Every structure is written in structure tokens, then in C-alpha cells.
């Protein structure tokens, strides 16, 4: 018996050190999909929360070996259905590397535009559900309302609202429809004001800030150790954005800042670099940057083809290729091996959510059950991206 337990037993009598095992999920309303947490709780305070993944495993990587290269593209949508563009792009880039094809400049721009719009949509879901998990229901429909506008834009672009299948091997499926750019500008102008309203609505709400300030702090080195990526990593103060560090596609042409966590909640409220509020507010700031990127892209977009010359039957020579894209949930990597056939020999997807799940067990001791919900929401995990 550990010394701590002996002390507890002496103080409160035998049985006081007992803990309650709470099965949170997979049908819990705020686990963001079918995820299960085994929570060891002592009253409201957790001793640890062990995430259990695999409920949404759909063998997407195996399917990649069973269907043709271009036939796998719709499946990539299902890797991360909240931000499907990035999953499309990652796979397309990997196969392009295998084929040795470079997509035309216009396609690169269209990819950047669609991805950044999708990043806005995904972050809206992230911050909206986070507000809802903290108990504020009203911001969530606000976020979803704006997301509908993004969905309308993307629907006009590629015909789908959730699983886009827009990026193709060698470019994108469709050019910009007529009148699309002015409509997009209208949305962006409108969205700027909505972001200000969002800050007034929830980001600066005292209860909200105090709930999240100093909560589940992930220091920078710890975030790197656990392989966190994307906004989760940057909120910990690590300035690492693939679009800046290893620019790909059209990103070298754009000017944008990379929001990094710096204890946005403020010292007097106990805000620290890498707390839940930083992770929340980094996403809000990233939406602003995405707006500016889309604006720049719409101004600079070159004329020309949007699809490279790719053979109807994609049959890359044997070899392997890896691609990395900065998804809404962080760096997403595809690793594709070809043996010269019509189908890939191996497809591997590396996603941010899976890495984020790993850190929960080590962050959870001492948190309250309400904090666990906030922590899950702040890491912005999406169940299919964990399990694939």
C-alpha cells in the first residue's frame, strides 16, 4: 500500500481511498464521436482518464490497398469528415509525388482556397462545440450558421457539403464557378464582423475564460514529446506550422501570421501558455488568418488549367512517397507505397487527433470531470480521424 493511501486510510477510515470507475462514452454527448474514456474518479476529481479508441475503426488504410489510386480519393474524405479537404489534398500530393506530376498553379491556388475555407468550417465546429461543452449552448448555433455559409460556398465549388472529393490526383475536380469569387468575398467581409462578434459572445466571457484559464496546461516540450500537431502544438508556444516551415502548394505566395499560444487568458485569471483557453483562442485567431489567405488567393489566382495531364488509369511506378499537409487538426501525413500496380501496396495516414488522444491520460490526474470534457474539446479530436 502506497504511503499516500495509508495516510488517506488513517485520516478517513478504511475504504476512503476507493475510487469510482466511470465509463464515459462511447455514447456520451461530449466525447466528440464514439470514443470511450475509462475515468477513475474520486468524487468529482479524476485520478486518471484512460482513452479507449477503436470504436470507429473502418480500415480505411486497408481499403487503400484494395481500390485503385483514384478510387481511394472518396475514402480519404472519411478520414476526417469535419475537414475533408486536407485529407483529400494529402493523398493527392502523395500520389502526385509517386507519379512525378505537378499540379498546375491554378489548381494549387484552388486547393489553398478550398482548404482554408474548410479550415474555417472545421475550426467553427471546434470552437462551437467547445463552447457547448463548457455549457454555453448559444455560440454553437452561431458557429454552425456561419459554417453553413462555408458549406454553401464549397457546395458551389464541388457539389458536396461534407465529403468533398474535390482534390484529385494532378489538380482539382472543378474550376471556380462563375460569380463564386464575389460571393466568397461577401462571405469573408461578413465573417470578419462575425469573428468580432464571436469574441464578444464567448471568447471574452468571464465565466468561459475562468473555466479554461490554466486548465490542463501542456508545456511546449511536452507537446513535442507527445507528437501534438497543429493548433494544439502551437497553443503550447511552439511556432510550428507546416505552411510556414515547409511551405507546400501555393502557400509560399501568401502572407499570414501563425497564432501561437501566449497565455491569452491573462495572468490575473491564471492563464498559462498551453492551457485550454490558448488552444481555443489559437483556433479563433487561425480563422482570421484563413480569411486573409482566402482573400489573397482570390486576388492572386492565376488563369490556366486546373488539372494536370494524368493518365486515366493511375499506375505509378514502384516506389514510395510521403506527403504532409497542415490540416485543421494539425499535420496530416500520408505514406503511399506503390508496387507498380493499379492499387497501392500500402497506404498509411498519420493524423493529429490520434496523437492528441495519447496525452489525455497523462494530463488527466487532478482534473475534474467537467475539465475532462473541456480538455477533450480543446484538443479538437474527431473520432474517425483517431481510428480511421
Amino acid at each position, binding site marked *: 500500500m502506497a504511503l499516500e493511501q495509508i495516510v488517506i486510510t488513517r485520516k478517513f477510515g478504511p475504504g476512503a481511498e476507493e475510487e469510482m470507475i466511470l465509463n464515459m462514452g462511447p455514447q456520451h454527448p*461530449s466525447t466528440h464521436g464514439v470514443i470511450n474514456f475509462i475515468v477513475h474518479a474520486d468524487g468529482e476529481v479524476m485520478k486518471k482518464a484512460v482513452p479507449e479508441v477503436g470504436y470507429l475503426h473502418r480500415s480505411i488504410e486497408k481499403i487503400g490497398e484494395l481500390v485503385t489510386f483514384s478510387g481511394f480519393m472518396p475514402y480519404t474524405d472519411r478520414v476526417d469528415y469535419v475537414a475533408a479537404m486536407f485529407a483529400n489534398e494529402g493523398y493527392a500530393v502523395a500520389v502526385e509525388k509517386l507519379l512525378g506530376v505537378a499540379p498546375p498553379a491554378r489548381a494549387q491556388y484552388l486547393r489553398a482556397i478550398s482548404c482554408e475555407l474548410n479550415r474555417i468550417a472545421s475550426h467553427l465546429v471546434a470552437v462551437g462545440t467547445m463552447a457547448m461543452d463548457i455549457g*454555453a449552448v448559444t455560440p454553437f448555433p452561431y458557429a454552425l450558421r456561419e459554417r453553413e455559409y462555408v458549406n454553401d460556398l464549397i457546395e458551389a465549388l464541388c457539389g458536396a457539403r461534407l465529403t468533398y472529393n474535390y482534390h484529385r490526383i494532378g489538380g482539382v475536380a472543378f474550376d471556380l464557378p462563375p460569380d463564386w469569387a464575389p460571393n466568397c468575398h461577401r462571405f469573408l467581409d461578413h465573417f470578419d464582423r462575425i469573428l468580432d462578434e464571436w469574441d464578444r459572445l464567448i471568447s471574452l466571457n468571464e465565466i468561459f475564460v475562468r473555466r479554461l484559464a490554466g486548465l490542463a496546461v501542456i508545456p511546449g516540450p511536452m507537446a513535442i514529446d507527445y507528437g501534438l500537431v497543429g493548433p494544439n502544438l502551437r497553443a503550447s508556444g511552439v511556432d510550428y506550422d507546416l505552411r510556414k516551415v515547409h511551405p507546400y502548394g501555393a502557400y509560399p505566395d501568401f502572407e499570414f501570421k501563425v497564432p501561437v499560444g501566449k497565455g491569452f487568458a491573462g495572468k490575473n485569471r491564471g492563464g498559462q501558455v498551453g492551457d485550454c483557453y490558448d488552444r481555443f483562442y489559437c483556433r479563433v485567431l487561425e480563422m482570421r488568418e484563413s480569411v486573409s489567405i482566402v482573400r489573397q488567393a482570390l486576388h492572386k489566382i492565376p488563369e490556366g488549367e486546373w488539372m494536370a495531364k494524368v493518365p486515366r488509369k493511375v499506375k505509378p511506378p514502384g516506389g514510395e512517397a510521403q506527403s504532409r499537409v497542415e490540416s485543421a487538426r494539425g499535420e496530416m501525413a500520408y505514406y503511399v507505397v506503390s508496387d507498380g500496380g493499379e492499387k497501392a501496396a500500402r497506404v498509411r495516414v498519420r493524423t493529429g487527433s490520434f496523437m492528441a488522444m495519447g496525452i489525455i491520460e497523462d494530463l488527466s490526474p487532478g482534473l475534474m*470531470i*467537467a475539465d475532462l470534457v473541456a480538455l477533450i474539446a480543446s484538443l479538437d479530436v474527431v473520432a474517425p480521424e483517431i481510428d480511421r
Partner: protein
Amino acid sequence: MREFLDEIIRDRLGQDPASWALTQGVYLVAMMAAGIALTTFGALFAGLTSWWERRIAARMQSRVGPNRVGPQGILQFLADALKLLVKEDLISSASDRWLFRAAPYFVVAGFALTFVVLPFGYHLSATRMNVGLFYVLSVTALVVVGILISGWASNSKWALFGGIRAAAQVVSYEIPAGLVILVPVLMAGSLNLHDIIRAQGGWPWDWYLFQTPMGYAGFFILFVALLAEGNRTPFDLPEAESELVSGYNTEYSGMRFAYFFLTEFGNLWVMSAVMTTCFLGGWQVPGVSAENLARWEALHQVPGWFYLVSAAVFCAKTLLLANVVIWIRWTFPRVRVDQMMSLCWKYLVPAAMALVVLAAVTELMSFELFGEAARVQAPLFSLRGLIHFAFFAAGGLVPAVLFFRKTFRNISFVGDRVRPLSNW
């Protein structure tokens, strides 16, 4: 109840009830009718509020809300009640069957019993109990007993969490609520809800809210404490749907769930009515002074319209407060358990304690200085009246103007209705 019946029979019908043969029978019938009317009022109010709250929430969230059943969806609550009535009353096999079944009745009883004393207008209440406020605090404590039982008897860990949270929360917040309610009690010198109202006046500057700083601060402490006691956001921890699935009522279905639901919405009325009574002048009609009323009463000539107008005034104030509670629910996030506890014990309880002491000292001093005259409402154009009016302007009008200015600024910035971009 009997005084009220006697009063009606004497003043309205011009007869002496004592001379009737079956006086007690008349009383019995009248009281049963009143009981049925009051519980029906509670249920109707809860049902209509459930619809109204959903409409307000929908409006705040750019949604439509229930608008199909009846005009503007006003009959939605009947449809919901019907649906819940015909649903199977599931009792999980692992639960404590008897406690599980009994819990909703505790909750409903705690809610319905408050209507015994709650005023609706001048002389309009089931009883004018002389310990009315004390009684309200006592019977509302039954609600938490029911919640605790439901959390325990469900034999579900989520429900247990909800029940324990509710117990901790309500028991804690009863202390500042109970303390701060003493402020109007001290000012009025009575626990009777009607006496507290009669000690105030009709105009806003005659309300206890704007009479003394203690009343002003006390109102907000009572508001927060009653929000917590009624399990309303930002204190809806016992049923925090994102944390505890649904809290203490997770395992309930059918009509038993509807009882919890009914109590939650009905409590809106109870908490608003208590606040209206204690601080907002209750049913006092502006323009009808205390002397006026006393003269009518002495002559047994209280006009019939006064009953109706006072009831309308009371309901208007209560509904306004209820709407504020609804707005708060759909605006704020939820606090955490430890924050809820520290807010109560670190801030509200000491503040309430200080307010009670201050109010007692002030009352004592003013009584020493002015005698019984200190209890009488001062007319507007006197020193005391002008001080009260200045306090009303500073504490009521200025914040209200600032609030509306800020609101209109926010609306003008984004637009009340967001420009339709969809489906271009």
C-alpha cells in the same frame, strides 16, 4: 384563505358567512377549487414556459424553434406532455424501485407547496401565512431531497453525480438566500409576503431594491442564489448535459421525467415571484398609495379593478424577471463545481452576512431616530423620497440605459438578422 373568502363574502356579497348553515362546506369547496386552480396554474405556467423558453432560445440562436402546434407553436407543450404521458415508464432493474418512483413526487411537492403562500395580487393568495417567506424556503428544500433521491435510486453513476452535485449546490446556496431574504424582512418587520409587499410602494423608487444599498446588493445576491437553487445556467451543474449526460434525471422517462421538467420550469415562477415580492414591490400598483389602500380597507370598499390591476402588475414583474433568467440561461456558460462552491462560500455568504448586519443596524438607527415614521413610505417630493429617487436613477436607470446602448451597438455592428448569404 378563510380571511379572503370571508372578505369576498362580506364585502362583495354583503352577507355574513357565520350565519350560513354550511359555512365549513363552502370553505372546503372553495379551498379545493383554489388548490386545483393553483396546481393547474403551476403546470400551465411550466408548460407554457417550456415553449416560450424554447422560442426565445431559438430566436437568440438564429433558429426558429417550435412553431408547428397551434399558433406560433404555443400548444407544443401539450403535444410534449401527451408524448411523455404515453411513453413507457421505464424503471431500470438495478434501481431502488420505490425510491425511484417516489423521487418525482418530492420534487413536485416542493414546487407545488410554494403556491400556498405565493401572492398573485392584492389579497390574492391561498393563505396570508405570517411565516410565509420562511415557509417558501422550507418547502423548496423538498426539491433537493427529491433530486438527491432520484440520483441515488437510479443506481447510475451519472445520476448519482447529478444528485450529489444538486445536494451540495442547493444546500450551499440556501444559506446566502436565507440570509439575504432577511434584509427585506428586517426592513418590513414581517415574514408575511403580503406585509413585505405592503411596506413597499408602487413606484420603482419605493421598492426595496432602490431603498437602501443593502436592498440593492441583496437583490443581486438573492438572484444569484435563487438561480443556483433552481439549477439554472450558469449553475445547471446537476444536469450538466455535456458532462453528466442529463444528471439526476438520466434514467427517468415518461411522466416521471415530465415531473422533473415541470418543476424546473415552474421554479422559474417561484424564484421570480419571491424576488418580486422581496425587492420589486410585489403587487403594489403605482399611484395607489398606502393611505389610499388603508382608507378603502377601512370602508370595506376595495374596488374590484384593484384586485385585477395588482395581479397584472405582479405577473408583469414576475414574468419580466423570468425572462431575464431565461436570457441568462442562453447566454452564459456553466461554472465548474469548485467555482460554484467558492462563489457561494467565499463571496456570497460573507456578503449576505454583512448585508444582514448592516440592514439591521440601519433599521435600528432609523427607528431610534425617526420612530415608526421610518417605516412609512416617503412621498417623492420630500428629502427621503428624493434620495430614494436619486438612488433609483443611479442604480436602475443608468445601468438600464447603458445596457440598452451596448446592446443596440452590438446589434448595429453585425445586424439583428444576419444578412442572408445562404442559397444565393
